[in-house]
């Protein structure tokens, strides 16, 4: 139990650092999503299931979807959008 907590916390730190250092915005959003997921597991271990549910629904779900939509709007999503433009 204790070792798992430390592993998750280490993962959290690595995620938080690599969000800022990743070059592609899409990768940053994906890493941020996994950060939220791990955070919700940690909330669960800290015996606050309320926060775990909210973190999983808002942090990993809705926020990332909004980020994706924004990336699409500013044409930062990669090659798929270039195809759309040419059509």
């Amino acid at each position, binding site marked *: 139990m204790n070792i798992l907590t430390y592993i998750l916390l280490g993962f959290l730190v690595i995620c938080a650092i690599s969000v800022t250092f990743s070059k592609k915005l899409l990768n940053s959003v994906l890493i941020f999503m996994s950060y939220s997921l791990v955070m919700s597991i940690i909330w669960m271990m800290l015996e606050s*299931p*309320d926060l775990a549910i*909210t973190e999983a629904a808002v942090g990993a779900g809705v926020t990332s979807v909004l980020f994706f*939509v924004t990336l*699409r709007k500013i044409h930062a999503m990669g090659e798929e959008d270039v195809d759309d433009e040419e*059509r």
Partner: protein
Amino acid sequence: MKKDSAFSRWFYGERDTLLDRVEMKPQTGHAPRAGEIRELMEERRLIREHIYDVEDNQKLKLFHRLYQVAAVVFCATLMLIMLVAVSWLPENGNPDNPVNNEVSARYIENGLQETGAVNIVTGMILDYRAFDTFGESNVLFISTVTVLILLHNKKKKETGAEDVAGGRANTAEKSRKSAGPAEKSGSIYEENLILQKIAGILVPIIVIFGVYVILNGHLSPGGGFSGGAIIGAGLILYQNAFGFEKTERFFTEKTYKWICFFALTFYCLAKSYSFFTGANHLESGIPLGKPGAILSSGLILPLNICVGLVVACTMYTFFAMFRKGDF
């Protein structure tokens, strides 16, 4: 004039001189020159000085001076009030503080009796600390309004109306030709069979789970905000699979307005009533019910439903706004 000259042929409409000669280019967006913005700002400043006559207008000068002094005085007073209030608070980290002993002990021991909620977190949020929650929901509402103001554009709506006027049959073709398939119909993955089948199975389960989380907010972990976020995520998945036409059958701007209006008004009135009775030590007359039953714990269940409705609609509205500018 000769009959076969280029001019006469153009004049009688047999030949278009522009055809195949001019390269048609799509219009690009307006890109300002390097110094243009600075020039515009400078111009605006000059006009403003000319209108208000800043150098010679004594009244305005006085007002500006007073305004600056008043701003500083106001900020200093506010800081003073807050610092005085903080100085009255007990020292941070002291083990004898009432926060460390009385408040939490009271919540844990009497929470079930006084609020009727088995889930003590919900009891705290929506009963003891409902005033804080009300302020939070107001902040959320204001931010939603700001997003709506920033992202709402009327232009797309007008072109959509033209499409409808131009005939239903052409609408699909037109939309596919003009603005690209995604922007018009709203769905990124148009007619993706796998996504549609999976969404058809998953969306009802997600929505039912969200409703369960909201309705059992006072019994099990969860509550209005988390349940509403789950329902909103389900709606977003549904929209992605089936497009805006399907969601607009039951969710439009009007629905959002009315749901938000009624839920927030009910929250405000209900909490005002219970604050009024609680502050004056009156009987509120709201039955607490048996702890553990669905219909128990007084006002918490309806308040949870209100918060859940507002949050679900807000989540979906944010998505629709980001996606196409209106809904």
